[in-house]
């Protein structure tokens, strides 16, 4: 009896975990933690804090994995509405830091509502498509676009282009995987290309400058170009095998800016070289591959598009961040999953991976 109880508890607690995702997550966290250690050699409390963040992340991931997709679906509308309301609140009463209004004060702490939308938008859109699965028509796509556009504009206006792009991408992936007709996609691309000059005029000065410095970093070597120049020097000087852990001169002599957050990839690339980069990119590729596999095998429409969107969002984080640090994309504030220091991003990421696990492990139950 007791044995049976223990076994049922075990099944209850462990069954929802996907072994492959867990292994990849732990591997990436290990790499991330050693890199944070190197990047914050001057401040050991950061290493401990990041270990705590990761523990919290693992717990959140486990907790989310327990929830079957049907239950997740129930969160879609309230989470989305709450997120949008909070964004509107930010718009009016948010705290302004460095010219951007991104935070809401809760008295004891501050929250960044845009972070919620990274999960809430794909969840909402997946739920919406799932509801109209059998009768998807043009107007449904239009409504979906509207549901995406509202938070996107609110976030972009803060301004926080990085998060807006990630939220927009997450929503777009749902719409794309949901079966948006190709003619519309092609049409949108054409319209987007045509609108680019107008979009340029809509950008803030600092955003335009970032794009211009990407094209020629040396035009502003001590200003906006400094980040790109120092990061590429760090990566390039790392060579094939790197300078060795804790041996990166660009890192430890503090030439790399934001080295424990957005630019942590430069720290890693300097110390681990091309070989280390190959390992890291492979880990990400496996994680993304596993996510896409889960999406392909998911049993409901909701689960499929949600898993696909979350996985492709993860890819977007990696691509935008590494592209930015290595100097092929403009500088936008996007953290590198499992590597960059910071609790909020880790929690959001863990919710996403938890959802993937839930979708994978509850598949059979649904089929049965």
């Amino acid at each position, binding site marked *: 009896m007791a044995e049976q109880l223990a076994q049922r508890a075990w099944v209850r607690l462990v069954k929802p975990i996907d072994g492959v995702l867990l292994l990849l997550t732990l591997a990436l966290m290990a790499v991330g933690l050693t890199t944070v250690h190197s990047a914050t050699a001057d401040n050991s409390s950061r290493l401990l804090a990041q270990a705590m963040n990761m523990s919290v992340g693992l717990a959140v991931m486990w907790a989310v994995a327990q929830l079957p997709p049907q239950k997740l679906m129930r969160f879609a509308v309230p989470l989305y509405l709450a997120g949008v309301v909070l964004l509107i609140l930010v718009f009016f009463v948010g705290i302004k830091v460095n010219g951007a209004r991104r935070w809401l004060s809760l008295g004891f702490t501050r929250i960044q509502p845009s972070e919620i939308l990274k999960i809430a938008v794909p969840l909402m859109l997946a739920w919406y498509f799932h509801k109209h699965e059998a009768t998807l028509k043009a107007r449904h796509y239009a409504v979906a676009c509207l549901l995406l556009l509202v938070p996107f504009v609110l976030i972009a206006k803060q301004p926080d282009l990085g998060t807006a792009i990630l939220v927009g991408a997450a929503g777009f992936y749902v719409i794309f995987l949901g*079966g948006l007709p190709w003619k519309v996609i092609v049409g949108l691309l054409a319209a987007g290309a045509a609108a680019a000059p107008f979009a340029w005029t809509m950008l803030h000065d600092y955003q335009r400058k970032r794009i211009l410095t990407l094209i020629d970093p040396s035009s502003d070597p001590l200003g906006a170009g400094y980040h790109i120049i120092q990061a590429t020097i760090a*990566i390039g000087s790392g060579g094939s095998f790197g300078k060795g852990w804790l041996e990166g001169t660009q890192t430890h002599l503090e030439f790399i800016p934001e080295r424990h957050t957005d630019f942590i990839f430069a720290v890693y690339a300097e110390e681990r070289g091309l070989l280390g980069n190959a390992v890291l990119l492979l880990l990400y590729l496996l994680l993304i591959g596993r996510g896409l596999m889960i999406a392909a095998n998911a049993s409901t429409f909701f689960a499929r598009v949600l898993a696909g969107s979350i996985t492709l969002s993860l890819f977007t984080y990696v691509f935008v961040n590494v592209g930015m640090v290595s100097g092929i994309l403009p500088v936008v504030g996007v953290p590198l999953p499992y590597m960059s220091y910071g609790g909020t991003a880790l929690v959001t990421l863990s919710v996403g991976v938890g959802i993937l696990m839930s979708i994978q492990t509850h598949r059979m139950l649904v089929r049965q």
Partner: protein
Amino acid sequence: MLGRHSRLDAPDRELERFRFRVGLAGFAVFVAFALLAARLFHLQVVQHDYYSTRAEDNRISLVPIVPNRGVILDRQGTVLARNYSAFTLEITPSRVEDLEATIDGLSKVIEVLPKDRKRFRRLLEESKTFESLPIRTRLSEEEVARFAANRYLFPGVEVKARLFRHYPEGAVGAHAIGYISRINKRDLEIIEESEQTNNYKGTDHIGKSGLEQKYEFQLHGETGYEQVEIDAGGRAVRSLSRTPPVPGNNLSLTLDIRLQEIAEKAFGDRRGALVAIEPATGGILALVSTPTFDPNLFVDGIRSDDWDQLNNSPDKPLLNRALNGAYPPGSTFKPFMALAALETGKRTPGQAISDPGVFNFGGHQFRDDKKGGHGLVDMHKSIVVSCDTYYYLLANDMGIDAIARFMGQIGFGQRTGVDIEGESPGVLPSPEWKKRRFRRPEQQKWFAGETISIGIGQGYNSYTPIQLAQATATIANNGIMYRPHLVKYITDSRTGEKTMIEPEPLRILPWKRQNIEVIKKAMVGVNISGTSARAFAGAGYTSAGKTGTSQVFSLKGAEYKESRVKKELRDHALFIAYAPAEAPTIALAVLVENGGFGAQAAAPIARMVFDYYLLGKLPKGAAREENVEGD
């Protein structure tokens, strides 16, 4: 059946479409990662060398280590210029946002006087872009400690230990020794032209005048370097390697600073110059130009009131009269004229004239000092009593070309080549010189009447005291002419090896010995029974001399009465001499600006110099004061 089939079919088609799109997305992911991998390969393999160099350049900074400047010693080994270490409070203007506020804040911690602010502002105007500039020098230990405690309040401000130049003898010999001061833009150009730019990184002082300037590259030494690892903020993290600096070489002079001091004091508050030379080597024993100045004022950047005082004084203390003042030699020219007469055969020693006290030429009267003349005058007497008429006639007989040719040989009107920059050539008058000097044709013509006053050292004649001293030494040395020089030897700081500045005969003039003896004998006579007999009465050695008085302006026939003429228009007093007469070890020229008669004003100065140099006798009432100036 069909309907059910289609209802089952639709999700399958939908699933297929979904899987196709996921596959497509997977492909896009793969392509994107390939792109990232290619970029990383490009950076880390293809461009690895380039970025490695960039990273090293970031990391390593070469910090210059300024060498100790060589010291300057006089011929007895007395220190004339040395270095000492002191703390300075320095501001790097490029790292300070509000300079005034920073200085105001500093003045609450450490005393900053208005003069310090003024000097700082002056330095700021002249400074190179990124250097740090002193707001206070010579901090006490207590001030250093007080600043250290408040340091965090003042980013861009630091205490530095620096070497300072100190001239222990103060104003004595300042014109010869010169001074160093902060490098300005013109100095930078000179450094660049000399290809010394690398060696002067970190150096902020340079020789500006005198020996400090002339021997700058000997005194400076070689800058050392320390390779330090720096962080992004430019702070040194650790030292990687060090190349020590090589100190500058030391100069040992021919100058005798005690003799120099006695000579300077002998001038009192009169303006003038004195050059004393060792005839057998050309080594300068004393190089006086009065008034003088304290070179220590220049070392940390001269205060503007000190500068104004030096620069605007009518006495022009910064002018080196010994090298840059050009004066008519007056009667001190006569021995050289007499020698020229003998060498060119225009006169014999015994040939005598009857002096009526006046010489008429072309309707113009050239007068002698003595009314009624000196009677029968031969060459010896002409020098001893300084008879003008004898030389009016002689000059007329010789003609300007012969005079100019002879005087040019003894160095008149040419730079002597002394080892100090900026020497003036003076003027050796000749028809050619006049053609070059004047533009209008009527001015370019040489008049025979102009030759007459040349004979007594007036007219266009204009020579520097050092030329006069060199010419005197050449007579004392029987026609062997040396280049006057101040540095006896240079000591290599590394090996201790001494490089002698070899006495360098410029010319050996083919004068007949008996001719020289005639002149020498007459000059001895001057000091025994002639114009300077009183000044040399009772000297314990034999000496030879010649007095001179040169007109500052022409009185046009009116009688010259010293008391009636404004001081600035009074005649210059001159005296040339050497001693001991039989084997000269010192030859000199003295000039006292507006001093009146050479015998009265200039000859006693020469006597004091000779007394000390030959007998070690100090002038009366001028017992040497011990130098008590502190560091």
